[in-house]
């Protein structure tokens, strides 16, 4: 039993690197996801995640399989979608969710188009679904740097960010933090998506950000608690995903996200705050 759990990591350097990479992502993406969920911006995260694909593809076409170029392209494209969404939100003709859906369909189509015209199918799969098992030292360094920067930044803007979600008008009445906080947060979202796509691929990077965050809302009633639980869920899902994919030779990225999905479904059913099953059990009401 212990062997099944430890042997892959003890034996293979690529598994150890994959483990470190996905744990680093698990530490930084879920806290960002918690605020995406609390700000009702989940769909926004989704759209930005999809925008990474054509961006990374442009980087790939210009510079080949260069980590730096693809990350930079992805980063630029993610920010572009954030800015475009912000502009569209001002025109009140189309609802924000509709415009975001539009953006991400467009981005996905453009990305797949570009990669398939100029690359091979293997490249496409690599960018779409990542290749956590092929994470090299450079990628690891990038992911770890992003994790460090975003955790420190999140700690600095934590209080204004909570207020920006909860009571933005109050925040604007007491300080000038409001707009900078929003912008910094958007940058953090894109950075984390870029970090995630190295390992999990552009389609799956949003998963590790959002699924643990959504699951945690079913268990705890504070932003801090949600962050801790979401990180824990992402940690466990990463390890479980890596092991399952190793032993059964299935793709790693989707397996990690499916593990997160199991937590999500379980939380939806059994979560102590609004889980579906609790409504089915007849319990007598309390005195007060």
């Amino acid at each position, binding site marked *: 039993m212990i062997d099944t759990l430890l042997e892959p990591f003890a034996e293979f350097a690529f598994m150890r690197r994959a483990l470190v990479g996905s744990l680093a992502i698990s530490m930084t993406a879920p806290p960002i996801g918690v605020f995406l969920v*609390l700000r009702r911006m989940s769909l926004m995260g989704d759209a930005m995640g999809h925008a990474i694909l054509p961006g990374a593809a442009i980087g790939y076409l210009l510079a080949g399989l260069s980590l730096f170029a693809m990350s930079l392209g992805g980063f630029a494209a993610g920010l572009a979608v954030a800015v475009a969404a912000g502009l569209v939100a001002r025109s009140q003709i189309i609802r924000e969710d509709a415009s975001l859906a539009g953006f991400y369909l467009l981005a996905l189509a453009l990305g797949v188009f570009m990669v398939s015209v100029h690359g091979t199918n293997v490249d496409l799969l690599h960018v779409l679904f990542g290749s956590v098992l092929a994470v090299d030292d450079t990628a690891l360094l990038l992911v770890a740097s992003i994790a460090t920067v975003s955790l420190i930044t999140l700690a*600095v*803007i934590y*209080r*204004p960010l*909570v*207020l920006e*979600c*909860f*009571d*933005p*008008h*109050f925040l*604007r*009445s*007491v*300080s000038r*933090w409001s707009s900078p906080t929003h912008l910094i947060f958007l940058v953090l979202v894109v950075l984390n998506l870029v970090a995630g796509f190295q390992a999990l691929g552009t389609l799956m990077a949003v998963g590790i950000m959002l699924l643990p965050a959504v699951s945690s*809302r079913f268990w*705890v*009633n*504070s*932003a801090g*608690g*949600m962050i801790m639980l979401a990180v824990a869920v992402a940690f466990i899902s990463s390890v479980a995903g890596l092991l399952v994919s190793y032993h059964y030779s299935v793709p790693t990225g989707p397996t990690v996200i499916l593990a997160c999905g199991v937590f999500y479904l379980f939380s939806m059913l059994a979560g102590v705050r609004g889980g579906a099953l609790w409504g089915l059990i007849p319990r007598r009401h309390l005195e007060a």
Partner: protein
Amino acid sequence: MKTLSPAISFENLTLGYDRHPAVHHISGDVHQGALLAIVGSNGAGKSTLLKAMVGELRPLSGRINFHGHGKREIAYLPQVVDIDRSFPISVFDCVAMGLWHEIGASGGLDLGCIERVAAALDAVHLTELAGRAVGALSGGQFQRVLFARLLLQDAKIILLDEPFRAVDARTITDLIGLIERWHAEGRTIVAVLHDIDVVRRYFPETLLLARKVLAWGRTPDVLTPVNLELSRRFHEGYDEQAAVCEHDEARETA
């Protein structure tokens, strides 16, 4: 009363969104220590005026003079509908944000701060609910939370946007008690209100708004049947094809 120095002055102020004005050419002073109600029908520009006073909305033309009062001397109570009450934050944490000007974005709460938050909660009778999430509170309880936060802000100018919306009579009485306490302490209070009876009973001065000033002065002089009828007949004058305003001083618009 007229000899008192002004706390806030509107200088030919025009406010609006996308060049369409919501409030036209307002001029006048709110004197120091005033207890002023802003009244008017829906769309009359009441909240817009308050937002401009908080600094959230840039005037289309004209300006607001605060006579040296900075951001930390102005406290603002937003409309409850603009607050996300499903956010998982405790009553204590929410009230403690009233200390923003002391603790800022990253300062901690020392023992003295914690005691002051507790005292503010006590003043609005919410001590037992300190650990609750704000989402679990009733409308009246939540409004008390926001008033406790205002207490901690300890501001010279207090701006309230519909403070009694969806609040029961007993809570209104309690909150009015706090407002009268602030008034007695010489703070300047401006409140957007709907309930004419509350205004008549507790607010000595009223500004009746219908996208421009209909009347402004002592409440009994302002809330006359004639003025109220004028206010009722006003309806939102938003016009897609509106021409450029030719009012004399409006030309300075950038």
